[in-house]
């Protein structure tokens, strides 16, 4: 099952006793302010978790896979996430079962 904003807010209420209205608001602001910083072209560094970086990609040749027609893939700005050492180590050490 996937973790959602509602569950993170519920966790703040249970773990820290933050009331439900505040926990919901804080979770919204957490994701919104990260997105706003990235929208301003700013890198976001959450130590222990990872960094969100902005990368500008230049135009490159592409093709419509259905028609085979050549169409350029326009220049774009994208977000990439680089997990931090601590998160990577925790995931590796968790020793999760191999995928089938």
């Amino acid at each position, binding site marked *: 099952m996937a*973790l959602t904003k509602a569950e993170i807010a519920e966790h703040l209420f249970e773990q820290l006793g933050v009331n439900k209205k505040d926990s919901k608001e804080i979770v919204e602001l*957490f994701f919104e302010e990260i997105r706003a910083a990235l929208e301003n072209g700013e890198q976001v560094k959450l130590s222990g978790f990872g960094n969100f970086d902005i990368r500008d990609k230049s135009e490159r040749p592409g093709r419509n896979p259905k028609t085979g027609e050549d169409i350029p893939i326009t220049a774009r700005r994208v977000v990439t996430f680089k997990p931090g050492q601590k998160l990577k180590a925790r995931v590796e050490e968790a020793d999760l079962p191999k995928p089938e």
Partner: protein
Amino acid sequence: MTKSELIEIIAEKYPSMQLRDVEASVKEIIEYMSDSLSSGDRIEIRGFGSFSLHYRGPRVGRNPKTGEKVDLDGKYVPYFKPGKEMRERVNASLTK
């Protein structure tokens, strides 16, 4: 923007909550997300993106100093896929 700057910005936008409570909450959000990922659970935040684990199979690596071969076990690495709103807003900033 760093974690402490994020905490300050949120505290400014939501003055009804004390700075120390905002700080504890932001740290707990990050901790909870890390816990979930390390338990193999995905995180799905609509309009922001999803975090999941990608498996990297076992491989033979090399010690860069000695050139010696080393067997590396398979492992999971955290992966982030930006959501639609995130992609659109970030890309729109290119032409601003």
